[in-house]
């Protein structure tokens, strides 16, 4: 019997050498005449341990990591002779970092072979669709509504209401669009699930299509994610071959077809109306709302547009029932959130947990503080448009309303950690600069405001009329916040104002040390 090993094919693992490790394992096995079978999975999300190698044993999978090419021979010797190895982490399911999570959406990610539809089905895949087919539109809509699922892209709009609006709309054609334009720095959950469990996204979108009466879906993936594009395309081909896409879905009379479209490096296309324009083949200019995409979306037709993680949450909700999902969470934030710990962090990766965990627990406890070992000074939550929080706000629970109450947002669930070497003036300036570069140009507060913001913060950096210019930046932020068409111009003030509010000392001129009189 051959030895079964698991090595991730996730882009994050490949970037730190997973392909080289897999190759070295094959070569070492060949030299020793040992038969091995390497399954390339998605990532478990414990990125500081990548490349992670897991070995199937009668006691479950045993993990080793982080493994480099040079560790492979000794690893092999240890496996063959069943002796200890310095990289042995023990049973993967017993690692505290994984054990304390609630993996509803990411249950299969890192476990199964993402290229195998059989593996997906063997691990509970397509049970959600099966139940959906037996329920019918109204019952599905009440399940999704009762689950309390809110848009995981950042806006947090109730998914059930969005679907219901499209289901009730009358049109000759309707569309399902998956927003996989995950442009926020510090976020990678969409990428991970597309690479590690792509059938889950397909299943979620298929359920949406059957529910609202749409026969065509698009997944708009950013061009910076070539591995995800490849994984989704391979999964779509496999699903078509097995009767899970195109006509007669799962043996029913309904049809649903899926297509991947690739973005072209515009951050603003993560905004839903800009994304629709881009899908239609135009400049990614934001549309004024109303009309909402649910009424007037892709090609002017009623459209469900949701984030990858929203669609990925659907199969669990249908398979296990709304209550099983809604039992997790706090307040109006129900279910789990795949949180991404990034930047200068010791234990970076994906941590899926029920809403309600505090920021401090996530950063200090789960994340283990900074990678550099210096004190954590600031964390940016929710991507480039999210606020910078100081340690004083680490008691904030991870919840849409709790973050909003403190002038922040959870966005797509990314947390970027900075140590005490950070200069918050530079971060504020970068927020404005990023907005200036990425602005679609349609509305004035965003297009002009961001450039004026960069200039004014530069004046502050040069020490020119500092307090007047700080007031000016604050005023400008208010104009952008309330006058912009979309979240790009409207939310860029979050990082800027939070930096000014919580890290004011960075903006004031350094106190000059007076020389003692001779």
């Amino acid at each position, binding site marked *: 019997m051959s030895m079964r090993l698991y090595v991730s094919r996730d882009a994050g693992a490949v970037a730190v050498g997973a392909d080289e490790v897999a190759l070295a394992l094959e070569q070492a096995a060949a030299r020793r005449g040992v038969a091995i079978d390497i399954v390339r999975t998605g990532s478990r999300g414990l990125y500081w341990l990548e490349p992670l190698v897991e070995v199937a044993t009668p006691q479950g999978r045993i993990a080793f990591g982080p493994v480099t090419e040079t560790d492979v021979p000794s690893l092999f010797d240890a496996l063959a002779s069943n002796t200890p190895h310095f990289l042995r982490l023990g049973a993967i399911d017993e690692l505290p970092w994984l054990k304390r999570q609630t993996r509803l959406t990411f249950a299969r990610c890192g476990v199964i072979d993402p290229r195998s539809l059989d593996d997906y089905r063997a691990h509970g895949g397509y049970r959600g669709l099966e139940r959906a087919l037996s329920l019918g539109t109204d019952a599905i809509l009440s399940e999704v509504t009762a689950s309390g699922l809110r848009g995981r892209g950042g806006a947090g709009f109730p998914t059930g209401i969005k679907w219901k609006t499209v289901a009730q709309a009358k049109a000759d054609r309707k569309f399902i669009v998956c927003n996989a334009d*995950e442009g926020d720095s510090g976020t990678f959950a969409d990428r991970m699930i597309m690479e590690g469990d792509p059938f889950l996204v397909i299943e979620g979108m298929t359920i949406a299509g059957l529910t609202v009466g749409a026969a065509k879906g698009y997944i708009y993936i950013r061009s910076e994610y070539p591995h995800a594009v490849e994984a989704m395309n391979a999964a779509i081909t496999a699903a078509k071959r097995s009767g899970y896409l195109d006509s007669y879905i799962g043996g029913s009379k309904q049809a649903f077809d899926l297509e991947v479209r690739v973005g072209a490096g515009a951050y603003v296309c993560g905004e839903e109306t800009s994304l629709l324009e*881009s899908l239609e083949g*135009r400049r*990614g200019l934001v549309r004024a709302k109303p009309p909402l995409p649910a009424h007037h979306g892709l090609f002017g037709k009623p459209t469900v547009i949701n984030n990858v993680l929203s669609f990925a949450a659907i199969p669990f909700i249908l398979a296990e029932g709304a209550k099983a999902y809604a039992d997790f969470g706090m307040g109006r934030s129900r279910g789990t959130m795949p949180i991404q710990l990034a930047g200068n962090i010791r234990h970076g990766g994906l941590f899926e947990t029920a809403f309600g965990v505090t920021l401090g627990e996530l950063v200090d406890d789960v994340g283990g503080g900074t990678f550099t070992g210096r004190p954590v000074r600031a964390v940016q939550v929710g991507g480039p448009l999210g606020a910078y929080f100081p340690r004083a706000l680490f008691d904030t629970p991870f919840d849409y309303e709790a973050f909003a109450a403190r002038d922040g947002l959870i966005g797509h669930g990314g947390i970027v950690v900075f140590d005490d070497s950070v200069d918050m003036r530079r971060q504020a300036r970068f927020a404005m600069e990023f907005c200036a570069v990425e602005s679609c140009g349609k509305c004035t507060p965003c297009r002009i405001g961001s450039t004026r913001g960069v200039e004014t913060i530069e004046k502050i950096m040069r020490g020119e009329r500092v307090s007047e210019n700080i007031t000016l930046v604050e005023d400008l932020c208010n104009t952008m916040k309330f006058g912009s068409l979309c979240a790009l111009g409207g939310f860029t003030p979050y990082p800027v104002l939070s930096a000014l509010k919580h890290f004011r000392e960075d903006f004031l001129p350094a106190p000059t040390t007076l020389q003692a009189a001779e």
Partner: protein
Amino acid sequence: MTAVYEPCYEPWDETRGAEIIAEHARQEGATLVILHALQEAFGYVPEAAIPMVAQALNLSRAEVHGVFTFYHDFRHKPAGRHVLKLCRAEACQAAGGDALAARAEAKLGVSLGSTTADDRVTLEPIYCLGLCATAPSAMLDGRLIGRLDQKRLDALVAEAQR
């Protein structure tokens, strides 16, 4: 060691361009799809292709030019033999990306967004590769590199210059 991968593009050819356009023109909202396909074949989107795309999709040249210039990905001229992209977004900034970008600029003698005089290396910023838990990150001709440090960066720069 990974073999040095060198992107290989066809020289611009009108007939070939027309073929590529025709292959995708029937899809709904095909403009970006076609521009991507042209760039994949030729390494950039040749000026001469713009009116051809416009005609195939029954759009004005201005509309296609507008789409072409809106998106950061589309190139107006061929890149250098190797393209080194450094992530400059917040997670990589937090992990020391600023200093690495400055080092790459100094080593190559060009600023981000430009190509060395010998046309060997194009150095570009990229805003997030989604490798934020193994920051800082980079991409050399489609190959991803995480946990970048001075030593790894120097090796990448040397590889790109070969």
